[in-house]
């Protein structure tokens, strides 16, 4: 099975090589992913598997967005947090006015 990530040599648009700011939420997500590994809950291989098995439409949303989906999938798979719990917490943070523009 060839995954959504396996695009080497296929037609594609130009590469965007400018640096860009890492959003605060993605820094937090990176920290969560790092903690899941350093505390022995998962490995980089499991994370890659979750990233590379995302549906095409989700995978295409962008680098940070696909990581957020993959980490949520893995949190649920490991029995650490359900997606419903994550969404509930997001709603709480938004209601408290900490959710930013969106």
């Amino acid at each position, binding site marked *: *099975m*060839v*995954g959504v990530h*396996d695009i*080497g*040599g*296929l*037609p594609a648009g130009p590469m965007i090589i400018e640096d860009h700011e890492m959003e605060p939420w993605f820094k937090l997500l990176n920290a969560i992913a790092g903690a899941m590994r350093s505390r022995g809950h*998962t*490995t980089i*291989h*499991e994370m*890659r*598997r979750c990233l*590379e*098995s995302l549906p095409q439409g989700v995978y295409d949303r962008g680098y940070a967005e696909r990581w957020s989906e993959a980490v949520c999938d893995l949190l649920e798979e490991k029995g650490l947090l359900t997606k419903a719990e994550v969404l509930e917490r997001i709603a709480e943070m938004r209601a408290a006015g900490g959710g930013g523009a969106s």
Partner: protein
Amino acid sequence: MTGEPLTDPIFKTGDQVRIHDSNPPGHRRTPDYIKGKIGVIERYCGAFVNPEESAYGFDGLPKKHLYRVRFDQTHIWDKYDGNASDTLDLEMYEHWLRPINAAAPEPRKAIVQ
């Protein structure tokens, strides 16, 4: 059980190998464009946990032999227009490598636009 490989490395530096051409389900680290292509063992890298098993929460043991394999770019890409001596190195686990004398179909050509 120490997790070390069950067998000695099959290949040595300079050996020609063909990349196994298959799309099995599961978490695979072999890019599609290199399947069926022929390369040369550039070096033996050591034995490492098998990511195809580790990806599902298993320990990935016994470890698998890993090699750096060198390919000619003109062999990989149908319309490669760079320098004819350009090469590409990929690190590949032994179970994706086949001896060059093993029967296999002609490698597919990848499409470059």
